[in-house]
């Protein structure tokens, strides 16, 4: 079996990766995903607050203006977050784009080059500073945040989300006790959503990671935001938990933009992972109604 997996080494050109990343950063920032758009449309029928309905209508009009005029949905075009699923039989090769422009570098450099080109050519906001305290804008929105999964085979899938920080700032991680159980997890999740309130541009989308270790839970929470809000967990009890939390979150009364109403959260996605006998990490990654993502298979 091992021999078989070795006879399929596939080469992917770095220039192709750069081009794909560039296109993806621009289109994800200009076009509201269909799952969010249809959820917003549906929510008009549920929302009881007049102001809330006006706000949702503004958001839908905004999405039309952004895609028609090819401009960002939100001025916060985020920090560029990537999940890269790379088959262990993929070989990234440097290649020649044209006679005087040789593309060389690692996969990571290629991704950052794509971000640089996309954020510059797409007129996206450059929001990254060089150091947490020195805080000088890097001018091209790099470096990106990149998570790698090495998988079997020769496929290469790159998923991208521009993550705005109004909502990122309201995200939380809790290390609760095993004895707190599922009720304890629900409590801290709803506490985090309630605390985010009007700051995180509701209606929000919530990514949750439960289990693993401190950092694993946070990465799972981020990854959960990449899933369509129309999809549920394949684990029956997790699916039930998503539905219960969605209903409870919408009972908080926060409403669109925190101005009060029925529509506080559009979707809750949960990912779980095995954890330690002593622990129960719960990470809540808050995102806004402009939760954007795109993916490409190369």
């Amino acid at each position, binding site marked *: 079996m091992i021999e078989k997996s070795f006879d399929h080494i596939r080469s992917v050109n770095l220039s192709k990766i750069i081009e794909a990343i560039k296109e993806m950063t621009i289109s994800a920032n200009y076009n509201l995903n269909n799952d969010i758009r249809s959820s917003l449309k549906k929510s008009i029928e549920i929302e009881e607050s007049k102001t809330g309905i006006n706000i949702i209508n503004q958001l839908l009009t*905004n999405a039309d*203006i952004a895609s028609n005029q090819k*401009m960002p949905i939100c001025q*916060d075009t985020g920090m560029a977050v990537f999940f890269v699923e790379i088959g262990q039989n993929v070989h990234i090769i440097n290649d020649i784009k044209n006679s005087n422009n040789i593309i060389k570098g690692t996969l990571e450099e290629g991704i950052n080059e794509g971000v640089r080109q996309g954020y510059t050519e797409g007129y996206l906001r450059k929001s990254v500073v060089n150091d947490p305290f020195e805080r000088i804008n890097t001018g091209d929105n790099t470096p990106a945040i990149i998570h790698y999964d090495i998988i079997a085979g020769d496929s290469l899938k790159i998923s991208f989300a521009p993550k705005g920080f109004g909502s990122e*700032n309201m995200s939380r991680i809790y290390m609760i006790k095993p004895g707190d159980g599922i009720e304890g997890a629900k409590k801290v999740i709803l506490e985090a959503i309630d605390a985010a309130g009007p*700051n995180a541009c509701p209606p929000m989308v919530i990514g949750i990671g439960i289990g693993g270790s401190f950092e694993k839970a946070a990465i799972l929470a981020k990854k959960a935001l990449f899933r369509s809000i129309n999809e549920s967990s394949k684990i029956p009890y997790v699916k039930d938990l998503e539905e219960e939390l969605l209903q409870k979150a919408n009972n*908080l*009364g926060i409403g669109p*933009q925190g101005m009060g109403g029925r529509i506080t959260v559009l979707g809750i996605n949960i990912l779980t992972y095995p954890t330690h006998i002593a622990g129960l990490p719960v990470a809540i990654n808050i995102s806004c*109604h402009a939760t954007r993502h795109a993916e490409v298979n190369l």
Partner: protein
Amino acid sequence: MIKIETPLTIDKVKCLKAGDEVLITGTMYTLRDAGHMRVIEQINKDEKLPFDMKNSIIYYVGPSPAKLGAVIGSAGPTTSYRMDEFTPALLELGLKGMIGKGARNKEVIQSMVKNTAVYFGAVGGAAALLASCIKSSEIIAYEDLGPEALRKLYVEDFPVIVVIDSLGKNIYEIEKEKYKIVE
């Protein structure tokens, strides 16, 4: 829908009540995290500020870059609480209106009541729509801050909602209670 024009005088502020939907026409200035730190630095050094704070409106925004021929890029509000620690000093100098999104702290609200000022919410994420109300934009200071540079904007019928009025009445708190379902 209430229409107001800048400058935002005390009389105009007093007419605005929490929950009012307002269209603003006139001049406003953009300032966010790093810009606020610069202004405070200048105040502490007794330097002349880049604009007259009296009866002014500050919009918490860092727009995306303008395409060729466009006035400005997408320009929705950023979250306001990060500006809280700098805000009372500006209210003391005559700042009358702030546009952002999200909650403010007690000190800001107390200073707003004392100085008769108003806090507006614009719809966060409606950045392309809000940009269409901005008719001119000019960087007047702190250009090195990029998206955080201080801009003078001229807006027409810029849509906002009064979140906290000059009596300290807060729409976030009042409306949330109305829709909250306790199980």
